[in-house]
């Protein structure tokens, strides 16, 4: 046998795919996908309908409830570390049709909508504070005017266009650049979070009230140095019944889980770029990304919220969000978000600037991952011939999927226009419901993988087969537990008005999307069959005897 080193064939050596994301980058990506600051702030503001809920406890409960799902995700990522993660897992186990139907609406098209819903609040939440604090530091009132303009509907739309263009450029520069930007943002963001936690730790309730009253009067000319008490009083007068932390209940804390899922289930999106992360073929690295990320999110968010609410009081926090959400307290000049409360802890514009910098560090790289999600699904589908092959075109220099990025850019702009200027934004709360259906389907895929003829051998050959509980595959046990929680979530989404997902518009949207995709996949298969390609062949079980 000819095997001397200088006769090595040109392509020998079993060189692996180049994966530009390190395991840590994958971990940070998951944290950003969760968006433990910005999306979390928005999510917490939706929890006022559960006045008896203990938000920190609710965060712990939902993160623990997601442990089985993330266990499945970690194992699937190790088993099949492919670009397009969920799409690949679902098509390879529950079938091409179902994989298409359950993945396309939430994970290919959904991110175009998410781009709008993620960015829309940013102009007031993140950019305006930055501009206002810079205006004070630089004594430039025009920056304050810009903050006001950017908070209007038109100003917000133009900020959206700028942001989507930024996201497109970042993606075109490639994932190595993305990883670098993400690392820098993560470091700044964590420093900011730590400093905010220290500020809160060193503040007591009365100091917060004093600071808030002073801030609202001085910076926003509202409240006559009594904004804190006035907010709670207004809410009570309008029929709201806020509760102190001591009167919150475990039941209500559990019930906010499906709402908190709007933040805490999105580490799953990391799976879509599993083919680009180093080391995920080893289970410990996948565990670090999914379970480690979940634990990190839980500790950081629950800890931070406990600090915040213990200083603000639960009554104040929920009352402020009640007034803002119900439209009855519109005379509060800006949304009562965590950013506002943090800024109220200090009077120096430099401090406000630092708060704004921290918020920006948690914002700018976050919605970019919508383009990552959507493009990776497109690439995987194009490889399977469900989409035209030109979608997989990569740029010469950086290997980025130029065509797929351009499609996402155009569709995000279109979806954004619908979001800003029509009633499309009503669907904001339905998107996480749709996305949780996709994640549940992947969890189901993982549950079945040790048993399905198509995937059994792959599973048995892998190291995952050695992980069992009472003789059953760990992935299956985790999958069953994960699916139980998803069923609970779906029942609550459908039956409880407070989640905003059980009206007829929601039903039409979700069922309509699934039906459209069902029609779509059948049409695509029919088209291919006419051209001589039976897409069933892609994943057909080929006998080996």
């Amino acid at each position, binding site marked *: 046998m000819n095997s001397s080193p200088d*006769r090595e064939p*040109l392509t*020998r050596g079993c060189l692996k*795919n180049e994966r530009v994301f390190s395991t840590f980058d994958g971990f940070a990506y998951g944290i950003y996908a969760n968006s433990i600051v910005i999306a979390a702030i928005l999510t917490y503001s939706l929890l006022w309908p559960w006045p008896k809920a203990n938000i920190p406890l609710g965060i712990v409960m939902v993160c623990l409830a997601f442990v089985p799902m993330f266990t499945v995700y970690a194992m699937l990522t190790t088993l099949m570390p492919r670009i397009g993660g969920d799409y690949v897992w679902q098509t390879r186990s529950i079938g091409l049709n179902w994989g298409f139907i359950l993945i396309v609406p939430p994970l290919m098209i959904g991110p175009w909508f998410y781009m709008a819903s993620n960015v829309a609040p940013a102009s007031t939440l993140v950019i305006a504070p930055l501009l206002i604090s810079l205006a004070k530091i630089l004594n430039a009132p025009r920056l304050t005017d810009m903050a006001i303009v950017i908070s209007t509907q038109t100003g917000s739309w133009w900020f959206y266009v700028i942001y989507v263009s930024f996201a497109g450029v970042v993606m075109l520069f490639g994932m190595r650049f993305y990883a670098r930007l993400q690392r820098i943002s993560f470091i700044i963001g964590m420093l900011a979070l730590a400093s905010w936690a220290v500020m809160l730790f060193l503040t007591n309730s009365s100091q917060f009230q004093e600071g808030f009253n002073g801030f609202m009067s001085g910076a926003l000319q509202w409240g006559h140095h009594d904004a804190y008490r006035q907010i709670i009083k207004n809410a009570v007068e309008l029929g709201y019944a806020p509760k102190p932390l001591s009167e919150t209940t475990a039941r209500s804390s559990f019930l906010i889980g499906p709402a908190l899922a709007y933040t805490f289930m999105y580490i799953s999106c990391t799976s879509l770029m599993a083919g680009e992360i180093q080391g995920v073929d080893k289970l410990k690295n996948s565990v670090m990304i999914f379970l480690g990320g979940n634990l990190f999110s839980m500790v950081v968010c629950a800890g931070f919220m406990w600090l915040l609410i213990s200083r603000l009081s639960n009554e104040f926090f929920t009352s402020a969000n009640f007034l803002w959400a119900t439209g009855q307290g519109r005379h509060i000049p800006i949304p009562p978000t965590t950013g506002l409360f943090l800024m109220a802890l200090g009077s120096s514009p430099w401090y406000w600037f630092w708060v704004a910098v921290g918020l920006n560090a948690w914002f700018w790289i976050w919605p970019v991952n919508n383009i990552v999600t959507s493009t990776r699904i497109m690439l995987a589908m194009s490889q399977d*011939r469900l989409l035209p092959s030109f979608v997989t075109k990569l740029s010469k220099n950086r290997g980025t999927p130029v065509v797929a990025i351009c499609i996402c850019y155009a569709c995000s702009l279109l979806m954004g226009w619908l979001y800003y200027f029509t009633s499309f934004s009503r669907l904001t709360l339905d998107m996480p419901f749709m996305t949780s259906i996709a994640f549940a389907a992947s969890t189901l895929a993982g549950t079945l993988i040790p048993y399905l003829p198509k995937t059994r051998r792959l599973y048995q050959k892998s190291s995952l087969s050695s992980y069992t509980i009472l003789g059953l595959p760990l992935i299956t046990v985790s999958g069953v537990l994960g699916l139980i929680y998803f069923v609970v979530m779906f029942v609550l989404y459908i039956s409880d008005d407070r989640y905003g997902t059980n009206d007829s518009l929601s039903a039409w949207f979700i069922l309509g999307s699934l039906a459209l995709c069902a029609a779509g996949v059948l049409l695509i298969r029919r088209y291919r069959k006419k051209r001589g*390609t039976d897409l069933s062949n*892609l*994943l057909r079980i*080929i*006998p080996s005897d």
Partner: protein
Amino acid sequence: MFTLLFTADIQGSELCWKKLLNAAELFRADALIVSGNLMGTELQPIVQEKNDVWRTVLEDDPIKVKGNAEFSALEKEILAMGRYPCRVKPEEARELEQSPTLRQARLKQESILCLRRWLELAERRLKNAGQRLIIMPGDNDPMFVDEILMESSLVEWAQGETIPLTPTHKLISEGSFYRGGRGGSHRFTEEELFQYLQDQVGTMDDVHSNVFNFQTPPLHPDLYHAPRLNCTREKDDWTKHRDFPGCAAVRRLIETYQPLLSLHGGTCDRENKFTRIGRTLCCVPGSGRNEGLLTGFLITLEESEIQDFQPIQG
């Protein structure tokens, strides 16, 4: 319409070979093209401890089997992985371990037996159905493989040959990038390779409707993401170059002649990859051998175009 099923880098996996033969029937392919790196490279001694107790070490795991049924299952597993099982007594195992020459000789013996078994199976399955089997070994395949393949009445020997697929399509194959073919000592430079391939392609009429079958893929980012390879690059240099791999000479050839289709192997990536260079569709199947996956492409040719194509992962 002419349907071909293309796969590459079977690397001795008997499971993949059997799947390939079944796939031909399942997908009603007119021809199977098997490109490069057909044979496995490792011997797997299974040592007899007692009468019917055998042991071996497979991927660092010690395995013990008892009885014929367990032994057969183990043999099947080893063959599926692309290794060649051989029954040995403890003294023989020690000799094999100590003597590379003996090991090479035994490897040759077992791989010949395996290859003959594969060809018999192929003849039984494909001959009656009128399906063609076109094989081009790769640089990693030992020279004795050529004789055995050429002896077969079913196999169409592709290395360095131009084979008519249909009245309008011809397949030109080249699996070796060493001067004088496999067994040569001088590796081509990019320019030398381009000239060498051009000399072969230049003899064809109407290259536009023909099919290239070269083991090394062309230089292109879509085809696989790994350190850059070059015809003259030493193995150690590969880790230093993280731009696009593949052969520039092959890329130039495709750009110059723009055949209908270009088939390549030589990747360790599990995923099938494809792209277009101009009008030419370039296909590089993955290698799912370790998971028992047959990876490849099903391509339907019309007179002057590719009607459709599809990656397969069975």
